[in-house]
């Protein structure tokens, strides 16, 4: 059934369809309509879940961590400084291997205060051991929430579902509302191997030594480093599981997509613009314009940012003359984080092949600065002609 709703409602409907048991949230713009919607579902009895209106984001994720440890399917959502305030818990959730799903409704971080959209919030959580997926429209938001729970519970790693504040969260679009029976078929009830249980007591997340240590049965137990290495290995393996999730999903819902990248007019392109989230759909308009001018350009959205689909990205960009990475965040002091990661993937797969593309970095939409499609087109047009700058260039900047 097709409905017209905003992006936050799409996320809320996804969480409802996934039958989350425990929801904890603290209000922050532009996440609020999502969690308000969930509180409505719970109060009206449309959703059988506990909704905890916590006193901070730090506690929101604490509730989810504990609920997940006790065997619940847990959900929270936040934005900007709320996510930064959670940071300690973000690391804890992945270290404890809890399949929590969190929506990050992307917003600029302070200081100075700014409530508008960019992606500095989630990008700054890149190294926390979470799976990070970016959405470009409402269909992707609701579908990704559903896939995220399945993936998280398969690999015991939490997932951030990221979508642009306002541009997606507050705009209305038509999308297909998945049927509950199909979601149930896709996503079985959450049954963890172990959960906090007085009949089977265990002490979770205890102090763990640098080295391996004997347990009471005389068997060697992991040290901290082994536990952390397994997180890394399982995150890398999650790329494969993400592929399975996509296949399963396509089998049940009929919507088929590449899990990692979303190319548009890339096949014969000499230049490819790359980005995360809604800006990649905006760039499709630029690409159409430039194609009409005879410039062989395409655009590719990167859906999974962590684990980084390095091979998929590198093979999609193989043989291209130029890659133009347009980002709504940056690693201050260097360049966009996606830029660095993408270059690293190209180096790994294409170094020595003689076909390393020229890679350029543009920063756009910081703190909600309007990204005018004309400006974006002009930027891509110039970048397709050759290297504009070594340093990242800011689109629409008026210094």
């Amino acid at each position, binding site marked *: 059934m097709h409905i017209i709703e905003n992006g936050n409602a799409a996320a809320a409907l996804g969480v409802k369809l996934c039958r989350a*048991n*425990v929801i*904890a949230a603290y209000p922050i713009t532009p996440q609020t309509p999502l969690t308000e919607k969930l509180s409505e579902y719970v109060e009206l009895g449309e959703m*059988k*879940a*506990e909704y*905890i*209106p*916590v*006193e*901070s984001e*730090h*506690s*929101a994720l*604490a*509730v*989810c*961590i*504990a*609920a*997940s*440890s*006790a*065997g*619940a399917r*847990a959900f929270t959502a936040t934005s900007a400084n709320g996510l930064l305030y959670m940071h*300690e*818990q973000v690391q*804890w959730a992945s270290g404890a291997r809890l399949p929590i799903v969190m929506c990050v409704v992307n917003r600029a971080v302070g200081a100075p205060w700014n409530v508008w959209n960019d992606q500095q919030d989630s990008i700054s959580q890149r190294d926390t051991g979470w799976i990070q997926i970016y959405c470009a429209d409402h269909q992707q938001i609701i579908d990704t929430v559903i896939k995220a729970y399945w993936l998280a519970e398969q690999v015991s790693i939490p997932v951030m579902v990221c979508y642009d504040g306002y541009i997606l969260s507050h705009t209305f679009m038509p999308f297909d509302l998945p049927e509950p029976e199909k979601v149930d078929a896709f996503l079985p009830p959450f049954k963890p191997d172990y959960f*906090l*249980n*007085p009949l*089977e*007591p*265990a*002490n*979770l*997340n*205890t*102090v*763990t*030594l640098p080295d391996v*240590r004997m*347990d*009471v049965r005389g068997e060697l*137990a992991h040290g901290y480093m082994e536990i952390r290495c397994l997180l890394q290995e399982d995150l890398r393996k999650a790329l494969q599981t993400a592929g399975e999730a996509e296949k399963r999903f396509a089998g049940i819902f009929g919507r088929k997509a590449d899990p990692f990248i979303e190319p548009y007019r890339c096949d014969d392109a000499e230049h490819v613009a790359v980005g995360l989230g809604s800006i990649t759909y905006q760039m499709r308009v630029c690409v159409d314009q430039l194609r009409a001018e005879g410039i062989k350009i395409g655009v590719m959205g990167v859906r999974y940012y962590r684990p980084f689909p390095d091979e998929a990205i590198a093979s999609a960009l193989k043989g291209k003359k130029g890659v133009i990475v347009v980002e709504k965040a940056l690693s201050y002091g260097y360049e966009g984080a996606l830029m660095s990661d993408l270059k690293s993937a190209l180096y790994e797969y294409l170094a020595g092949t003689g076909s390393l593309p020229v890679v350029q970095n543009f920063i756009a939409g910081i703190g909600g600065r309007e990204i005018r499609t004309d400006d974006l087109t002009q930027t891509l047009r110039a970048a397709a002609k050759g290297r504009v700058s070594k340093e990242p260039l800011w689109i629409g900047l008026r210094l």
Partner: protein
Amino acid sequence: MQAKSTILSLPTEELVHPGTRACTGCGLSIAYRVGLKALGKDTILVVPPSCLTVLQGLFPVASTKLPCLNVTFASTAAAATGILATLKARGNEHTTVAGWAGDGGTSDIGLQALSGAAERGDNFIYFCYDNEGYMNTGVQRSGTTPIGAITANTPFKGKLQQKKDVPAIMAAHHLSYVAACSAAYPLDLYDKIKNCLALPGTKYFHIHIPCPPGWGYDPRYGIKIGRLAVETGYYDLYEIVNGEFRLTAASEKLIEKRKLVPVREYFRAQSRFRTLTDAQIDDIQKTIDEKWAGYYKKDE
């Protein structure tokens, strides 16, 4: 209060294995051992980093026979809420959820989450074991370190500020149950836990915990010093049941006695108060006497 327990009426099953990593003479060992007996086996614990993390042992060995979730420093109460929500979602109404945090984890970094959970009225028991400082990190001052105490970061003058009254803060949340206890009076602690189990919402316990390395005394004198704190009227054992305050155990008996041990004896038994002058002690004595004059008046 209902029937008073004796040492012989406590359950014999130990829920804390002997030989923990706690310091010799640790007051927490007593309170935790007896506290878990009162809570019983159908309990899930939440513990933030603190001395208790050390007592609980290093992976893969644990000293506690109850399921326990170790959480970040500031999130004990919120984590308790998360476990409760899950139990509730499953229709489990029998399992008790209990948080055990130190005074830093309660009065300082954990206060926000605790206040949030208490305001929501989440049904769990929160224990603050108050050894009056960040003992696990090497004896730094906390919100509940008393005035005059030398710590690692109040090294010469001692702490200049008053102890934060956390039970009063928690009582201001209109809880069904608030108690002040001491490791030196474990049976009082046991009975209070038993009596509050059926009460609704958040229950708050503050437990005074003598700490040999942090307070500066020979480990064998822990109980004596804990008792002195009560007998001098410096630290009171009480409970507030649905807003009704009443002294309990040894503090209740002091009402009848109308005689307090001079607080100087308490201070002089510990090296942390070595820079407190006689005049300062006299001032503190005066405050204690005024507090107790109020108790006596209420009793008349």
